[in-house]
């Protein structure tokens, strides 16, 4: 199967004016600006299959946005290439726009003072959505995500959660094949996040739309994505499944063991004893030691009543990757 979204050695360099400090520096900048090249995106390659939800992560300023802007056709890469739904986005931005939906969590496409339906009609005209498709999508979103009761309300009176759902519904009106979601859950409470996660999973399953999810929220990733791409300082530093990521990067595994009777803890160089009071033992292993090595050691010191292994939480993994 051909990937729906792909990038080959995608690179973007910007020339920026370096600000000098102080008044003298500011005046100096006016007449003789010091320029510097920055590598915003450095040789990134990846591919996404149709129907996937892929998480796209990285600390602030890592080059996520620049990559997305090249994929959506806003920016032209310095070198390398990208392809989205069979088109080169930055060469044919207008055709590309029909294939994609874009939702920015921090920017709105809705008309602030007007009822939601006006924004929908505006989109219908702009994208030339046929009446039948428009009606069908409208009823789909009304039935599933309660869009119907807010259609006549001015956008400014909606809650943040309602607004985000409306934004996503609007981005889906023209049946895009790829949906770019840039921090869709930003500022939402637990309930709002949960509803949005359901919505995203639902449209992915019902519409077979490919989703690239940019987020800082590890919960979004855990709930929605099976695969992630992580970039930092412009370069791809990880690309693969979440489970593999945890295995490869999060070697911290916690073993909680309840023995039948008090016993001495394990003595091994690769196991740290966090706690060993009476029957309850808590071991920590920070190296990549396979289970078949650890398990016999645990069983050797006493009779086990209960036993749990905790994987490292994803946010811990992320923190480690970012600071590495």
């Amino acid at each position, binding site marked *: 199967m051909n990937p729906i979204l792909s990038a080959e050695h995608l690179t973007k360099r910007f020339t920026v004016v370096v600000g000098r400090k102080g008044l003298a520096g500011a005046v100096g900048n006016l007449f003789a600006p010091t320029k510097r090249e920055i590598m915003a995106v450095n040789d990134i390659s990846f591919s996404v299959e149709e129907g996937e939800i892929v998480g796209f992560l990285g600390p602030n300023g890592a080059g996520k946005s620049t990559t997305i802007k090249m994929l959506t056709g806003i920016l032209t890469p310095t070198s390398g290439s990208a392809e989205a739904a069979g088109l080169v986005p930055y060469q044919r931005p*207008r055709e590309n726009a029909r294939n*994609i939906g874009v939702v920015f969590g921090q920017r709105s496409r809705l008309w602030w003072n007007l009822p939601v339906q006006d924004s929908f009609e505006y989109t219908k005209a702009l994208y030339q959505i046929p009446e039948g498709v428009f009606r069908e999508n409208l009823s789909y979103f009304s039935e599933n995500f309660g869009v119907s009761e807010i259609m006549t309300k001015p956008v400014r009176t909606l809650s943040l959660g309602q607004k985000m759902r409306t934004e996503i519904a609007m981005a889906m009106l023209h049946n895009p094949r790829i949906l770019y979601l840039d921090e869709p859950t930003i500022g939402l409470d637990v309930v709002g996040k949960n509803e949005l996660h359901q919505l995203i999973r639902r449209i992915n399953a019902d519409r077979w739309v490919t989703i690239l999810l940019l987020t800082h929220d590890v919960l979004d990733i855990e709930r929605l994505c099976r695969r992630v791409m992580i970039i930092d300082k412009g370069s791809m530093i990880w690309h693969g499944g979440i489970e593999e990521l945890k295995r490869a990067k999060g070697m911290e595994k916690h073993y909680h063991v309840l023995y039948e009777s008090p016993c001495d803890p394990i003595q091994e160089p690769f196991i740290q004893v966090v706690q060993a009071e009476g029957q309850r033992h808590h071991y920590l292993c920070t190296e990549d030691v396979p289970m078949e090595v650890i398990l016999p050691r645990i069983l050797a010191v006493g009779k086990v009543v209960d036993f749990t292994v905790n994987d490292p939480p994803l946010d811990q993994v992320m923190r480690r990757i970012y600071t590495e």
Partner: protein
Amino acid sequence: MKQLWDYLKVSCKIELENQLVFRSNFFVSILSVVIRVAMLLALWSALYQGKTQVDGISLATMKCYTVVSIVFELFIACNVEQSVTGKVKDGSISMMLTRPASYPVTLFIEQLANTFQAVVVWVIPYLLVILLCGFARGVQLYLGPWFWASALGAYLLMFFYQLFFGMIAFWTQEISGFLQARDAVMLVFSGSMVPLWFFPEKLFALAQYLPFQAMYSVPLSILIGKITGPDIRSALLVQLGWLLGFWLLSQLCWRKSRRRMIVNGG
């Protein structure tokens, strides 16, 4: 074409609705225009000091010019430049660039919708007021094809002029200081506040070479009969020249800016 027509229709509807959302705001802005008209009329009456004519222009003509120029300003009003620079500054330009329509074309449609709103809400009511209050009494107005041609030319010139400066924002990110200075020059040399024929000779000559007079002074002067005969043709040619110039410049800037643009914000 159908896309643009549908888009224009829905934009007109939205612009009109948007204008009428807040009632008190709407009435206050009507009041503000009325106050401005009243002040300018009082000012000209005082300046004429009972004389019936100054430099061959009667007080009645002058009053008519004042009122008509304010209405014309409402008609020609354009916020393309502000819209583009604002969006470049806060980064929301990226949302405009992921639409299935060319950005300059989108801007023109929005401008047309804006004008539609201005004509319905402002221009038509004021024209009625002008007729009812008799501001045009005793003044020979020329409403022939040359006037409409010059008004259309002024409208398009204004759009491409603003589009050009908006496109510059893609390079410079921040030009508001420069734009303020330019607007001060424009206020004087467009003739919208003080008619150009009251200018000293040298300033008057200078004004003829600037694009600003082609936006306000030319159509208004044709309307009240200050420019007539062969002068109309040369005034329209100058206007056409500026129009083509700014059209070319804005297109050039747009092509170039797409390649070297930096988008602000995450």
